[in-house]
């Protein structure tokens, strides 16, 4: 029973990180209909920047803040310089450019910081709580991870559903022509969407780096599981991304705990196929989006 609880708690905290990555992918998919595989490289770079700042200044929170700001800037730059040129082209070209950027960023990180994975400090203690004399595998840092991801999801929801800016961003994504006619600066909204997505992504990098270590290719599985989570939940739904992330995190945690880590990728495949066979557009799809 304690094992089950431990695995559940562990699943929730890794699932929260998958949810954050999925959220970053969903933001970009909604804005520009591009699956941004470069996300994995972008949040790897910002986490490396955080690591450098932390070791130079000695302050975790300074590094944390710098990484988030760098994420915002990097997202905007990537959209302005690269993605804008392929947004309107064939969809596969954008995928290839994103893959190219992922490879390029990983190679550059290897040149600058080396290919050996290094440790990354957690925000809070990673020693599990003692509850009633039993030691559980859930630490203050896991609490922080889960709370931060929930907080970001809520803020994004308020932004998209409750503010004029969010309305403009949604309008630009769904009806760019009409939105432009009504005075929405559509291309600026796309840039903002990419910047926000990269911000959320860089947060995911900071949260996961202590447990998987930091290296040029270290975040590849996180990216793949984040994408799987986004597809599970439905790429058009931020809530779906969050649910998909936690669902995937829990499943992988149980499978790896009870059956062994080698089956984790196979379990991801099974979950994804089962969900997609029942709901081809993800858990939160509606008939409208299925036609897109």
């Amino acid at each position, binding site marked *: 029973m304690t094992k089950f609880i431990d695995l559940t708690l562990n699943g929730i905290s890794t699932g929260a990180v998958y949810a954050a990555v999925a959220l970053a992918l969903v933001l970009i998919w909604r804005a520009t209909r591009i*699956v941004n595989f470069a996300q994995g490289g972008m949040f790897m770079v910002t986490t490396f920047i955080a690591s450098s700042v932390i070791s130079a200044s000695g302050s975790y929170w300074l590094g944390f803040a710098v990484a988030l700001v760098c994420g915002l800037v990097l997202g905007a730059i990537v959209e302005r310089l690269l993605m804008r040129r*392929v947004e309107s082209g064939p969809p596969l070209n954008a995928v290839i450019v994103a893959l*190219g950027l992922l490879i390029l960023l990983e190679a550059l990180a290897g040149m600058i910081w080396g290919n050996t994975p290094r440790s990354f400090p957690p925000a809070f203690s990673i020693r599990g709580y003692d509850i009633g004399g039993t030691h559980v595998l859930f630490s203050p840092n896991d609490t922080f991870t889960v709370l931060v991801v929930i907080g970001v999801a809520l803020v994004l929801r308020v932004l998209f559903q409750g503010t004029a800016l969010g309305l403009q961003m949604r309008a630009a994504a769904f009806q760019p022509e009409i939105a432009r006619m009504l005075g929405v600066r559509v291309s600026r909204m796309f840039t903002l969407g990419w910047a926000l997505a990269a911000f959320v992504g860089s947060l995911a990098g900071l949260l996961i780096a202590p447990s998987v270590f930091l290296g040029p290719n270290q975040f590849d599985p996180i990216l793949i599981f984040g*994408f799987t989570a986004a597809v599970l939940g439905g790429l058009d739904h931020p809530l779906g991304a969050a649910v998909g992330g936690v669902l995937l995190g829990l499943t992988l945690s149980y499978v790896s705990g009870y059956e062994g880590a080698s089956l984790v990728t*196979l379990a991801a495949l099974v979950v994804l196929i089962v969900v997609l066979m029942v709901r081809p557009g993800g858990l939160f799809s509606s008939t409208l989006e299925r036609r897109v």
Partner: protein
Amino acid sequence: MSSMRSRLRASTGTLARSLGLVLLAGVVLFVASELLDSYDELQLANGAYYFAVLAGLTVLTGLSGQISLGHGALMMVGAYTVALLVGNEQWALVPALLAAVVITALVGILVGAAATRLRGPYLAGATLAFAIGLPALADRFPATFGGENGLVINPPTPPSSLGASFPLERWEAWIACAGALIVLFLANNLLHSGIGRSFRAVRDDEIAASLCGLHVGRVQTLAFVVSAACAGLAGGLLTVVLQLAAPGAFEVGLSLALLTAIVLGGLGSLVGAIWGAAVLVLLPGWTNDIAHSFSLSTRVSANLPLAIYGLVLIVAMLAWPSGIQGGVRRIIGPLRRRPAGG
């Protein structure tokens, strides 16, 4: 009746053209294999099985409009089939390769049937999960699949009629090229057949295609099966050339590289698949040469090939949105009549 006859004439024309194409390619490859040294012969063999799988992807992605990030895993099915049949059951090469094609096609039916319900990124996600999930099976059943180290087979022996000193690499290149030529012949016919047209119809407008009496799901599944069969053959040839089937060769990177090659080469034409295979074989060598021609620190020179590869992908997509073949066609296009359906 007359329309039937003209259709018949058109199809024999395609058949003759495909045969001519294959003969020409065969002569070029034969002469090339005589001139090359053993390293380049091995490269030729690698290019040949890459072409086989890329031709299959051309049918799937270029023709029927479905995306697959899982073709590396389909190659793995073919590779392990050949490794098990040749290594454990002492099958001859040709029946083993045929079995690889059949078994991978059967897997293709499963994947394809699931894929018909999925579109765009959802299909990409499902096939990507397939690509990361399948190599785990080799770890799970090490007694059958050899775990991390994979399965080793004996190298194919050149027939004694070719002489005792006939190089092994050239024989491997011939086997792989023969497979590639068969794929070229069949794929070129398919491209210009009624089935090829139905693939394109489904790609361009599913509703219109189903109004014309096409069963969209069945057409899409068929495209997946054809494409999986090509991948199975390619995987089997890979085992023959490398004498090894190991999970490390079929990780998700291979699937992504295949998709990249097909888009970079030029989506939808078999010439594009040839360009794609050439890129897959030659680019790593070139980038390595470039990286080691400067005196750089090991940290930089170890990562430079990858950086160049990423940069090439980005620049190529911006410069030639329709791939290398699109760029070539723009240059020589006005000089010749554009072939139908190309």
